[in-house]
C-alpha cells in the first residue's frame, strides 16, 4: 500500500530546486506535494479519504512556525510525517536534508499528552535523562556528561529546583516544562510541540511563550495548536492546515492581534476561508483573509 520507498522519495526530492537550500541548512524541514491517507477499512484509498492533500511547507533555520487547523484537519498526521512515524503516499519530506526516519533522534518532540504515568516512582531528573537515551551506551548509569546536559535542560526550563521531585507531584504547567526539558536534553536541532497550551492557564502560558521565544534564538520551533490566539500572537508564521495547507506571515495580522492581546486576555483569529473538511470544490485551501474577533471576560 505504501509502495514509495525512502529511496524513491529522496529521488523525487532531488529534482526539486529547493533541495539545495535544504543541504545548505537554511531549510530544516522540506515538505513538497505531500498527500496522505490512512489505509481504509476495505484496504483501498479513494480520493475523498485524504487527510493531507498536496501539502508543501518549508521550515527555516530561525523559524517559529505555528500550525493551526480544526480537529481532523491533519495537524497530528503532518507532525507524524515530519517525525518519520508515517510515510506519505505522495510527495517528499526531508528533515535536515535526510529522510525523517534517519534523523528523527535530532528532533526534540514534546507530545500533547505526556504518556508518563503520574503514579510512576520516577523523579523529574529520571524523566529528563530518558531524553538522553539516544546518546547513552549500555551500562547501569548515565554518564556524567549526560547528567550535566539533563541538568542544563532543567535549568533552561526553570525546573532545576524540581529535579529530585517525583513527577506525579508536579502541576500541568510544570510537567509541560519537564517534557520540554526532556526534548532539549536530546540536544535537538528542531523542536516540535504538539498543543503545548492545552490545559494551561494564561499566566503559565505566558511563561511558556517566553521560554519558547528564548529557545527560538538558537532553535527552529514548530508548534501545533488549535489555540489560534496563542499561535497568531506569538509566532512568526502561521500555517493553516485543513487537508490543504497555506502559510501566512504573522505580520499580516500582527498589528490588530497584538493590540487586542494587550487589551484583553483572550482573543481569536478566525481564518474565514478555511476549507470545510472534505469540500471538493475548494482548490486553494485557506486564504489569507483574516478576521480578528475578541471574547471578553474569559481570563482570570
Amino acid at each position, binding site marked *: 500500500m505504501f509502495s514509495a520507498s525512502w529511496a524513491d522519495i529522496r529521488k523525487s526530492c532531488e529534482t526539486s530546486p529547493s533541495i539545495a537550500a535544504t543541504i545548505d541548512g537554511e531549510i530544516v524541514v522540506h515538505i513538497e506535494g505531500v498527500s496522505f491517507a490512512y489505509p481504509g477499512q476495505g484496504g483501498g484509498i479513494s480520493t475523498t479519504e485524504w487527510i493531507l492533500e498536496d501539502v508543501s511547507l518549508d521550515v527555516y533555520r530561525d523559524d517559529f512556525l505555528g500550525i493551526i487547523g480544526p480537529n481532523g484537519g491533519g495537524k497530528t498526521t503532518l507532525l507524524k510525517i515530519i517525525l518519520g512515524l508515517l510515510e506519505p503516499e505522495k510527495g517528499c519530506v526531508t528533515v535536515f536534508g535526510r529522510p525523517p526516519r534517519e534523523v528523527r533522534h535530532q528532533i526534540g518532540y514534546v507530545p500533547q499528552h505526556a504518556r508518563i504515568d503520574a*503514579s510512576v516512582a*520516577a523523579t523529574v531528573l529520571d524523566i529528563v535523562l530518558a531524553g538522553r*537515551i539516544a546518546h*547513552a551506551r549500555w551500562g*547501569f548509569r548515565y554518564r556524567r556528561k549526560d547528567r550535566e546536559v539533563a541538568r542544563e535542560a532543567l535549568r533552561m526550563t526553570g525546573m532545576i529546583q524540581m529535579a529530585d521531585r517525583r513527577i506525579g507531584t508536579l502541576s500541568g504547567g510544570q510537567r509541560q516544562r519537564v517534557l520540554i526539558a526532556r526534548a532539549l536534553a*536530546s540536544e535537538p536541532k528542531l523542536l516540535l510541540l504538539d498543543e503545548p497550551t492545552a490545559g494551561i492557564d494564561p499566566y503559565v502560558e505566558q511563561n511558556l511563550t517566553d521560554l519558547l521565544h528564548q529557545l527560538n534564538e538558537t532553535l527552529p520551533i514548530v508548534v501545533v495548536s488549535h489555540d489560534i490566539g496563542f499561535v497568531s500572537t506569538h509566532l512568526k508564521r502561521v500555517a493553516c492546515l485543513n487537508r490543504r495547507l497555506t502559510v501566512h506571515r504573522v505580520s499580516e495580522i500582527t498589528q490588530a492581534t497584538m493590540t487586542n492581546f494587550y487589551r484583553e486576555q483572550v482573543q481569536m483569529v478566525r481564518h474565514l476561508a478555511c476549507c470545510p473538511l472534505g469540500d471538493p470544490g475548494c482548490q486553494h485551501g485557506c486564504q489569507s483573509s483574516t478576521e480578528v474577533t475578541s471574547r471578553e471576560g474569559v481570563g482570570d
Partner: protein
Amino acid sequence: MIDFFRDWSENPFLWNGLWAGLLAGLACGITGPYVITKRIVFLAGAIAHIAVGGIGGALWLAHAFPQYFGSVHPIHGATIVAVISAIVIGLVNEHWAERSDTIIGALWAIGMAVGVLLIKFTPGYQGELMSYLFGNLAFVSQRQLQWIAFLDAVIILVTLLFHKQFLAVCLDQEQARLQGIPVTMINLLLLTVVALTVICLTSVVGLILVIALLSLPAATVARFVSSMLAMLIGSTILSCLLTTVPRIAVYGTPVNPESAIVITAATLYLASLFLRRRAL
C-alpha cells in the same frame, strides 16, 4: 521459628529452601519495578501459566524418550517455554495490540491445558504439577537451586547492561522510539527477563502466587520513594526479606510458607496504602 535454626544444620533442604527464597527475592526485586512501571503484570501472569506447558513437555519427553531427554529437569522445560512465550507475547502485543488481550488470554489457557495433559500422560508425576502451581520450598533440589542461581546471574547481568533502555521504554515508549531506541528488541529483552524471573519465583511460591511477588513488593516501595533507583534498591531488599523471613517464621507450624510469604507481602502493601496517601 527456633526449630528452624535448630534443624537447618542437619537438613540440607532447609538451606536450599532459604537460598532459593533469597535468589527468587533478588530476581523479583529487580524485575518488579519495571513490571509495575510498564504495567505488564498481566503479561507476566500469562508467561507463568504458559510455562506449565514446558513442565509437562519436559516430564513427558523424559518419560517417553529417556535415552535423549532422561536428564531434562522440568525447570529447564519451563524456562525454555517461558522465554519462547515471552517473545511471542511481546510480538503479539506489538503487532496486534487491539487483539492482544484475546490472543494472550488464549495462549495462557492453551499452555496450561497442554501442560496438564502432558503431565497426565506421564505416570507418577502428578505431584510435580502441584509443586509448580503452589510452590515447594521444603524440597528445593540442588539442581533446581543451581538453575535458579544461573537465571539470577543472567537477570542481573542483563539489567545492569540495559537498565537505561528498559527504563526509557517503561517511562515513555513513544519517546524512546523517536530517540532511535530499538523499542521492539528492548521490549522483548525485558519480557525475557520477566520470564526468567517468573521461573525463579515459581519454585518458591508457585505460579499462582507469582503475580503477587512480582508486583506487591515493588508497588509497596513505590509509595515511599521518588526515584527509579530507590525503587530498585528498596524492592530488592523488601523482596529478599519477604521470601525468607515469613518462611523462617512459620517453620514448624502448620502454615505453609508460600502462603505466609504472599499474605505478608499483601499485608505490607495494604498497610502502605493507609500509611502514605499517594496515587497509585
